[in-house]
């Protein structure tokens, strides 16, 4: 994966003399102290991160955490007080006015919380705005804008005005407008938080779909943990202007960097984040065909289990045997193959826990996690699934 955007020690301070405040922060003064003593607000402090090409990167935090300030640094709506932002290796904080306009026109686009649509322009005129700014001819931009409108399912609305559309539709216009310039990077500042929950879910799914098709680098802001974990390849958690942790949803859930984050993730629905590979256990007790039945019976007796999965030499799943069958077979001198039962429930490693629950409940046997070539990767017992749903306290984990 190539790095698309690299933030290096980016800080943004608001006030009349922001530069003077930087050393104060370096001395370790808190946001509140600085506000009290100098009337300067620390929006973002020392944020560093790499964002990969094609990644869905979520920045999560409560209001006042600096997430909206940070996302505006990516397109220089907020000029960082310190630090640099490299996009494709170029430091955008050093851009001239013309270079910056060029960058905004071609490489990056933004979707806003309250849509930011131009109420005096029709839907079509809104969508073609970015192209109009770039000086494309009317026919050309009409054509591209119409395609984008069709993409978001708003064909037929092109001559309406934004106020005539529902919130969900307005945000679709916002997304279509952002995509007309075919930018590499899409900034989304809480795009769905002004929408009602049903529409929000629908829009989230559409966005995932869109991302699958277009493979943009998306930077997405939200205050909603569930949304962050549902959408993000990786999530950065912010608090008081600082980035507290960056990681995949699973990493943040399983190894929260501090108490704040673990409290944040406490009410997350874990079954929608954790996948089979996160809860499975390594397959220790697997009988290979060449081992023979004697070995199998011994393994079962030693481990106190009544059935055993069987694999071939390449660890490919063949089926399972029960201890009763095995003892009978030894007495009657039959082969493993003759008592092999093949009806095993297999799942792929990226199956979500919520989908595993009905499977483990139906199946009397553990579930087997296999890859595409049917090789055994791990085994999931009922107890694995259940214990994964209980959030471990951060304290308990560190003790």
């Amino acid at each position, binding site marked *: 994966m190539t790095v698309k955007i690299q933030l290096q020690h980016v800080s943004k301070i608001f006030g009349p003399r922001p530069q003077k405040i930087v050393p104060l922060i370096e001395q370790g003064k808190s946001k509140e102290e600085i506000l009290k003593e100098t009337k300067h607000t620390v929006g973002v402090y020392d944020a560093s991160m790499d964002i990969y090409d094609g990644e869905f990167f979520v920045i999560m935090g409560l209001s006042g955490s600096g997430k909206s300030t940070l996302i*505006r640094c990516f*397109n220089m*709506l907020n000029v960082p007080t310190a630090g640099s932002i490299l996009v494709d290796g170029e430091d955008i904080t050093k851009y001239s006015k013309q270079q*910056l*306009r*060029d*960058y*905004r*026109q*071609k490489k*990056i*686009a*933004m979707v*806003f*919380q*309250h*849509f*930011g*649509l*131009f*109420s*005096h*322009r029709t839907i079509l005129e809104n969508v073609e*705005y*970015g192209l*109009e*700014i*770039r000086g494309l001819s009317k026919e050309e931009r009409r054509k591209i804008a119409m395609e984008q409108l069709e993409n978001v399912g708003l064909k037929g609305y092109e001559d*309406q*005005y*934004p*106020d*005539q559309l529902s919130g969900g539709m307005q945000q679709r216009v916002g997304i279509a407008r952002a995509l007309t*310039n075919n930018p590499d990077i899409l*900034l989304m500042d809480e795009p769905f938080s002004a929408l009602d929950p049903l529409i929000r879910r629908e829009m989230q799914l559409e966005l995932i779909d869109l991302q699958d098709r277009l493979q943009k680098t998306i930077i997405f802001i939200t205050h909603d943990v569930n949304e962050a974990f549902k959408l993000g390849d990786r999530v950065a958690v912010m608090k008081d202007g600082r980035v507290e942790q960056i990681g995949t949803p699973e990493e943040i859930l399983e190894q929260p960097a501090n108490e704040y984050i673990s409290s944040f993730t406490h009410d997350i629905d874990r079954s929608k984040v954790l996948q089979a590979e996160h809860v499975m256990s390594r397959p220790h007790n697997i009988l290979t065909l060449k081992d023979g039945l004697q070995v199998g019976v011994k393994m079962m007796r030693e481990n106190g289990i009544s059935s055993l999965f069987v694999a071939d030499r390449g660890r490919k799943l063949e089926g399972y045997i029960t201890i009763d069958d095995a003892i009978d077979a030894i007495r009657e001198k039959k082969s493993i193959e003759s008592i092999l039962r093949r009806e095993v429930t297999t799942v792929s490693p990226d199956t979500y826990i919520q989908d595993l629950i009905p499977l483990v409940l139906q199946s009397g046997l553990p579930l087997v996690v296999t890859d595409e070539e049917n090789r055994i990767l791990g085994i999931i017992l009922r107890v694995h699934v259940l214990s994964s749903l209980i959030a471990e306290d951060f304290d308990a984990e560190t003790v």
Partner: protein
Amino acid sequence: MKSFPDIQFPIGDTVAAFIDFLALNFKGFFDFLFVIFSSTIKATEQGLLMLPWWLLILIVVAIGTYFTSWKGGITFGVFLFLIGTFDLWSQTMTTLAVIIISVVLSLLIGIPLGILMAFNRTFASIMRPILDAMQTMPTFVYLIPVIFFFPLGNVPAVIATIIYALPPVMRLTELGIRNVDEEVIESAESFGSSRMQMLMKVQLPQALPTIMAGVNQTTMMALSMAVVGSMVGADGLGERVLHALNRIDMSLGFEAGISIVFLAIIIDRITAGIADKMQSRRGEAS
């Protein structure tokens, strides 16, 4: 210590000396302005008088119907017809010409300055007390210097009218541009708009309803100056009112006065109608 001590700053004298200085040294400039103004006013007046009375009434009915309602349009037509029956048609056209020129000039000066005020806080803080003075300074006070610079007639009336009517459109232009939704500005910026594109494609259109409210107010204030303007020699309805006042002619006074009211109603409703139309074209109030 009951009376105020005898301290004197000759502010009034200084201003008077300054005005004298201007009148003396910039005579050419003011003469040039006079020629331009008086010929434009004359041309407008003559243009209006050239229209047959029934055609003008029809035009007003049509415009009124389009921007307000057919009831409004017909009412405006009746008003104009009544003015004609008062035998005040040509005076009305003169007043209308003075108002049109004053308003057009006010807008040409006021809107750009209002934009500048929205963009430059220092300029805005300098302009604000000046605008306050323009609106609250008794009109007669600045009629005095105006007649220093120009011969009596319609031109000083137009100048005085501009001074009085300019502030609303300036203030409301500034307000309109400042009040454009922050996110809308950000979104225009995020697409890489230049300053000019931002102004022409986003800020001005977004501020237009507010600016139109300013245009409406400016027009009404210009109309209210009709009588004051006639004190420096402007013709028209105001002159008739003054005439009636001098002769204690109640009948003429009322007819000329109600004609000004009719004119005011027509202009107010139509400009307000234009503002509404702009607003409603984009769905609802935004």
